[in-house]
Every structure is written in structure tokens, then in C-alpha cells.
């Protein structure tokens, strides 16, 4: 059955429901003192029982961060963030001793994830999807680890990987996004608390989808997770992430870093459905989603594909990028960004072509409704050595209502004669003719809107794994509720 039918059905069945993940889990938490200083960095490192090199790395990042300024170039506006007015470590008390197996996970947490549609007990789970559940600052459960271990795939919280696979972590952590990279990535390097680690050995095609489900629960806390995925020669993995947070009046900061490393002939498919709490209709509350994601295609013939559906967050600042270093490597970026009410999104990608015959495709669809502002910002750069490289970019913006904005800011840089770049962009409002046609055939305003917008996004949504596609379709409809009529 096609996605859009489903969407329309689901939209109508949940009509009126705005943000269904807005609940708060009442659970006893272990918190670091509020604020940020060197002691907090040491505190986090000590909590995780980290080796000295990692503590030193964090401290260097913290020193560096103190000298940096928040980037101001994005088309987003928000009040100054008080970095001292937040908790940098928040973990469920029950996690203190660490659950030995899934059966020992706090039932309250299991209930939370069940409510989010992510059952963590393996017998209830969707077969074929392994989940790492990150709750505030810590990973609370990782499923199917034994199954994966059979084929040599490592999938575990990064805090465990630091202890169990120190040589891999030390070799690759910060090798794609250095600790000095940018304001938020540097902050993350200093205070990251957990995240997922994944290693796919040579020649292994990961037998199931890997996914991380991020949940911010604690008030006044930020989430700073770090994901590191290494795809060794000839391996393949499809990785998904989802994010939600309770409905709160204050803004909360999410500053993650994701690093992907691909060796020869490796392939990573990385999909995100971002549904952080977007704030209310008046722009109160919501997550500041300031994320650095980057893939290094180091090997020949490697391929990375970023697919993102961004519907949540009050402010999104995010540019999943590809460094196409290996000859013949391929980078793809498929994005849908939907903003409604007072949401702001400044998102896009960077494709840095270094190797010969590298190719990249960018398909970005922005939908703005309400009083929101949506910006596509992208860089395509052909370095002098990128002989025969190719890029194709298409970014389309759809405007729903006359109070929103849609902006397109591409940077296109070519330093190689034989490299070809093609860029196309359009901006238009949603077609009255299309809406009328659908309604004449019996669809309601919102069904018609959802169907047309899903059609507009189809090129991107069809890139998602099935399990996520349905969720994403549904989100497209829900995110636009109240934007017509």
C-alpha cells in the first residue's frame, strides 16, 4: 500500500492531536550540578569512568569552546542561550549500576519507550530493527546485541565502546568532526554523555536495521550525544534515528555530533526522523536542534546516503555533509524540512568532492507554513583533484499561507574543469487548483494538503526504510495541521 494513502488515513484518525510525544516520564534522576565549567567536564568523564586520553580531549575541547563565538550566519533568531542555566548530565537513577540485560531495565523506562512506539523487549519488537535507546544523557538499553555480535557487528552505547573497543574509538573519534570544528560540535566534544557506536566489519552486510531513539525528558537539561559509525571495507549498514521530547515552556538544547567513516566499497544509509518538540503555536518552548553530522568517504567506491525528515524543533541548524575523498565515492542528501507556526529551520548539506569521479545528489524539499521560516543552505565544492566529478542539486520550497518564508542559499564552487555541477531550485505556493481538485473528489482540506505535500516530498520519503516511511508520512500530515482553512 502506498505511503500517502496511509498518511491520509492516519492524519484523519489522529485529527486534533498535535504533538503526541509531549508527555513527561516521572523517574528519579541523577543530575550533575547545574552549569558548565571544567569540573562538570571532569564530572561527566568520571561518571563514565573514561580513560585519561578522552578526559584530556574533552578538556581541550572545553578550553577551545571558551574562545569561540556562536555562529550567527544562519537565518534563525532566538534569544541568547545561557549555557550556565542547564544540566549537562542527567541520568535515570536506576541506570546507576547499569542494567545487565534488557530484563533489568527500569519498567518506567520500558513504558516510556513503549508509549513512543519503540518497545524495547525483544519479543515485542519489530524483527529486523535493533534499537539503542538514549534517555537524556545515557543509553538505557540496546537490543539485539547478541544477534549482531554473531556476524561481528558491534552496536553499543559509545560510553561502553570507549571501554570495550578503545583502539577503534581512539582512532576514529573526532577524525571526521574535530573537537575544534564549530561552536556546537566543540561544546559537544567537551560534554557529550552518550550516543551510539557502531562498527561493521569487512565484507559484512548488517543483517538488520540499526536505530537509536533519542529522548530528552529532564527539564532544564540539554542532550549532547555523539554517534560514531565505522563501515569497514565492503560493509553495509542502514541506520535510523528518531527523536522526541516532552512539551515544555522552556527551550532545551540538543547539540549532537555524528561521525561516519566509510572505507573502500562500504555503504552507509543514515536516516533521521526528527520530531523534537517544536514549541507551541505561539513559539513558546521547543528544542534548539544544533547538530553537526558529517560522513567521510575515505575509501574508493564508498557511498553514504543521508535522508532526513525534519518536522520538529523550534530551531534547527543542521547540515549533514559528505567528504568524498575516495575515488568514485558517492554522497547523497535527501531532505524534507517542514516548519509550521513559529518554527525556524536552517538546514542543508555540504558535498566536498576531493576524489576523482565522485558524485553527489542533493534533493531538498522545504515546506513552510504558519509564520515559520525555512532555509536551505548548501555547499557543493569541487576541489582541483575532483576530475570527472558530478553533482546534481534540486531544492524546492513550498509555501502554505502568506506569513511564512522560504529561503535558498546555495554555494557552488568549482575548481575542476571536468567536474559538472547542476543546481535547480524553485519556490512556489501550494496550488489552489490541486487542493480544489482533491476536495472535489471528496478529500478534506487536511487530507488534500497532506496528500499534495507528501507527493511533493515523495522523492525523499521513498528513500526512507519502510519502518520509518510510514511514520514520516504521518508526521508530514500532522506537522501541517491547522495551516489551512
Amino acid at each position, binding site marked *: 500500500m502506498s505511503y500517502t494513502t496511509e498518511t491520509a488515513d492516519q492524519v484523519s484518525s489522529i485529527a486534533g492531536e498535535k504533538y503526541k510525544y509531549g508527555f513527561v516520564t516521572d523517574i528519579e534522576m541523577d543530575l550533575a550540578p547545574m552549569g558548565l565549567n571544567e569540573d562538570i567536564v571532569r564530572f561527566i568523564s568520571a561518571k563514565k569512568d573514561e580513560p585519561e586520553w578522552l578526559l584530556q580531549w574533552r578538556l581541550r575541547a572545553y578550553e577551545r569552546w571558551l574562545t569561540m563565538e556562536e555562529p550567527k*550566519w544562519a*537565518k534563525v533568531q532566538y534569544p541568547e542561550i545561557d549555557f550556565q542555566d542547564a544540566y549537562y548530565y542527567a541520568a535515570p537513577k536506576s541506570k546507576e549500576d547499569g542494567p545487565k540485560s534488557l530484563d533489568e531495565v527500569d519498567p518506567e523506562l520500558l513504558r516510556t519507550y513503549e508509549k513512543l512506539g519503540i518497545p524495547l523487549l525483544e519479543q515485542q519488537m519489530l524483527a529486523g530493527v535493533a534499537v539503542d535507546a538514549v534517555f537524556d544523557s545515557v543509553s538505557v538499553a540496546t537490543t539485539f546485541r547478541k544477534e549482531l555480535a554473531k556476524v561481528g557487528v558491534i552496536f553499543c552505547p559509545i560510553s561502553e565502546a570507549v571501554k570495550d573497543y578503545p583502539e577503534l574509538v581512539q582512532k576514529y573519534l573526532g577524525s571526521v568532526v574535530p573537537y575544534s570544528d564549530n561552536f556546537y560540535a566543540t561544546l559537544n566534544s567537551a560534554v557529550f554523555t552518550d550516543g551510539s557506536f557502531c562498527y561493521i566489519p569487512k565484507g559484512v552486510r548488517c543483517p538488520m536495521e540499526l536505530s537509536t531513539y533519542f529522548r530528552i525528558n529532564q527539564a532544564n537539561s540539554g542532550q549532547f550525544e555523539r554517534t560514531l559509525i565505522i563501515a569497514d571495507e565492503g560493509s553495509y549498514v542502514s541506520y535510523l534515528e528518531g527523536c522526541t521530547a516532552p512539551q515544555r515552556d522552556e527551550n532545551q538544547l540538543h547539540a549532537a555530533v555524528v561521525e561516519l567513516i566509510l572505507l573502500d566499497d562500504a555503504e552507509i544509509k543514515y536516516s533521521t526522523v526528527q520530531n523534537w518538540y517544536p514549541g507551541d503555536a505561539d513559539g513558546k518552548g521547543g528544542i534548539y536542534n544544533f547538530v553537526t553530522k558529517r560522513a567521510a568517504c575515505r575509501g574508493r567506491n564508498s557511498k553514504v546516503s543521508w535522508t532526513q525528515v525534519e518536522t520538529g524543533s523550534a530551531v534547527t541548524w543542521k547540515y549533514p555533509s559528505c567528504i568524498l575523498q575516495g575515488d568514485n565515492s558517492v554522497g547523497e542528501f535527501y531532505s524534507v524540512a517542514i516548519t509550521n507556526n513559529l518554527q525556524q529551520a536552517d538546514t542543508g548539506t555540504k558535498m566536498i568532492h576531493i576524489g576523482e569521479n565522485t558524485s553527489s545528489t542533493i534533493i531538498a524539499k522545504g515546506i513552510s507554513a504558519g509564520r515559520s521560516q525555512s532555509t536551505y543552505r548548501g555547499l557543493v565544492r*569541487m576541489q*582541483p583533484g575532483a576530475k570527472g566529478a558530478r553533482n546534481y542539486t534540486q531544492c524546492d*520550497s513550498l*509555501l*502554505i*499561507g*502568506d*506569513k*511564512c*518564508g*522560504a*529561503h*535558498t*542559499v*546555495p*554555494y*557552488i*564552487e*568549482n*575548481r*575542476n*574543469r*571536468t*567536474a*559538472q*555541477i*547542476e*543546481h*535547480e*531550485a*524553485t*519556490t*512556489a*505556493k*501550494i496550488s489552489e487548483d490541486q487542493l480544489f481538485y482533491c476536495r472535489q473528489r471528496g478529500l478534506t482540506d487536511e487530507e488534500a494538503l497532506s496528500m499534495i505535500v507528501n507527493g511533493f516530498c515523495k522523492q525523499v520519503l521513498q528513500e526512507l526504510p519502510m519502518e520509518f516511511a510510514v511514520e514520516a508520512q504521518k508526521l508530514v500530515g500532522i506537522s501541517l495541521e491547522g495551516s489551512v482553512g
Partner: protein
Amino acid sequence: MTSENYQAQLAENVPQTDLPWLADMRQGAADRFASTGLPDRKVEAWRYTNLKPIRAHLFDLSLGQSVNPPPALLADSLRLVFADGQLVSCPDNLPAGVRLDGMARTLAEDPGVLNGHLHGIQAIRDLPLPALNNALSRDGYVLILEPGVKVAEPIEILFLSATGATYPRNLILAGAGAQASIVEHYLGTDDCDGDYLVNSVTEVYAATGARLKRYKIQQDNPATSHIATLAGQLAADAVLENFDLNLGAKLARSEIHMALQGKGADVSLSGVYLLRDKQHCDNAILMDHVVGGTNSHQDYRGILDDKAHGVFQGKITVQPDAQGIEGHQLNRTLLLSDRAEMDSKPELEIRADDVKCSHGATIGELDETGLFYLRTRGIPEAEARQLLMTAFIVETLGHIDDDAIRGVMDALVSDWMAA
């Protein structure tokens, strides 16, 4: 150079005047420039262009020279000639309702017609290079068309340069329904040492229903710097077609600010840049749809050889509530050499919903298949290349609907290709 140095240099070089408004304006502009100095590459608008080469020449003001200007480009044109920035010849038989004269003479004889318009366009008033021009400019041309006047002859303005820094300041005031075609030709003399700076500003006010065509040919000497700013304000139903041919200078920047302020206003900007050696050419455009029911088109194409560096930064802005907009933008570049470089940044900023806006950009090499095909048909390689290069820019040249001017442009383009 520090702010104090600028202050001192400016104090020495700002021309004196008895007109209080003019003195105030020049001083304000001088202060403005002193406070900002030249923009560096951290300023987004200058991301791809380094202004260092012009710093040493800013206050090397040239005092004019006697020259023998080359023949006019167009037969029967109304022609003004400036040598190193100063007016040396001016037509005497002007059609009724047309004022075409030097800026210095107009300021001396009838300054009232300029007050309120000179340096009046907000969008460029605070920018460093136009401010510096405003502070230091000594001459330029003034074209004032009475309402309804349609000038049959093309107007041709030659800026001939040999030395020093010149700051041409030009003003076009087109009354309601007036029509004219203007060619601005920037040319280096054959025998100069070549290292000069031109920093020109042209302000255009088009009243209701006015129709203007402006063509700029930039053929400054290969070692020089050419900075030009064009700022336009269009009232309802006013139409402006502008074409930029960039051939000369080592460092060229053509910056255009257009404000479509009345319903039915229509702006079409097109340009061709042909660069070789270490030439650098930056076309920067800001198209501002202030009100609804306005249209704009941009079409810029270029061919880069050797170590040339091309830049295109085009932005379409649609202001809130400016409904019913069409804005389109196209930038295409051919790279002929392994060391040539092109940076393109087409940008849309849309704050109303009833719009149809698009942009497209391509950068690549000459179509090898096409070349092969032509050669199998017996066309020698050099000729085949030239054919394909011409084909690449011919659509853009097609925006020129005046046969005589098109002829001039075609000749210049084929000279470049044959060189």
C-alpha cells in the same frame, strides 16, 4: 590602512563645494567609509573577492588628461566622453526634454535637479565603495528625461582611463513614460601603464511606465581594477533591461541593486563574462521585490580560461505581502582550463507565498560530444570550439533586442574568442 589614515586621506581629497547639502553628503559618506574601510572576505557580499589590490590606489586621484577618443561604437549616438573621470566632450544638439551633461557642470549650474536623487538610493548608501565614490567623485554623467520623452538615438558614454583612481558618479532620472537606451563603455587607453582603478556608481530612477535599456561594456586594461555599482528604483510599470559585458580589468566587480517599488515593474538583468589569464570577475546582484505584481529575470553566462576566477552572487528577495511575484535567475559557466575557477551563489529569500521563483546554475566544461560531432562534419577543432562557446552564450546575448548594439556586442565577443 587604519581609520585615521583614511580620515586624513579623505580630508585631503574630498572636493570642496559651496552647496551645504552636497558638502554634508560628501562628508557623511567620507565618515562612513572611514569607519568601515574596505570590506574584507569575512563580509558575506565579498566572500569570493579580495579587494587588497585596490587599497594602494584609492587616493591616487587622477586629474584628467588630453586624449584622442576612439570613434563612437554606434552611429548617430548622443555621445559623452570622459577622460580619467573628467568630461571632455558633450553633445550640443539634444532632443527636447532631454538633459544630458556632466555631473560637475550640472552641480555648478543647476544643482537643484540633483538634490534628493544624488546618492539617494538607500540600498547602497551605506556600502563602503559607493560611499567612497560619493565622497571623492568629481564628475560623471547626468541624464534627465522629461515625462513621455522617447529618445530615438542611443546615448553613448565613454569612460576612457589611463591612470590613477577615478570615481565616476552617474545619475539617470527617467520621467513617467520616458524611454532611452544608454551604453556605458569603460575603456583603457592603449598607451597607459595600465594600473588604474575605476570605482563607478550609476543611480537610476525610473518613474511610472518609464522604459530604460542600459548596456555596460567593460574593457578596462588587463592590469586594472574595475568596481561598478548600479542601483535602480522602479515605480509602477517601469521597465529596466540591463546588460553587462565584462571583458577587461584584472579585478572586476559589478554590483547591482534593484528595488521594484511599483506594481508592474519589471527588471531584466543579463550579462556575459569572458575571462582569461588571471582575471577575476564578480557579478553581485540584489533583486528586491518590494511590492507585489513585479517580475524579474537574471541570466548570466560566462567562459573562463587559464587561471580566471568567476563569481556570481545573485539574490532575489520577496518582501512580506509582496504577492504575485515572478523572479527567475540563471547562471551558467564554462570552464576551459584546469586552473579556472567558478563560484556561484544564487539565492532566494521569499517572504510572501504567491510567488513563482526559481534559480538554476551549472558549471562544467565544453560538450566533448558536440565537439566531436562538429569535427566529424569537417569543422576544424578551433572553429568548432568557437561555435560551441558562442552557442553557450548566444541566448544571453539574445536579450539585446537593439540590432546595432547587438552587432557591437557580437563583434567584441568574437574578438575575444579569436584572441
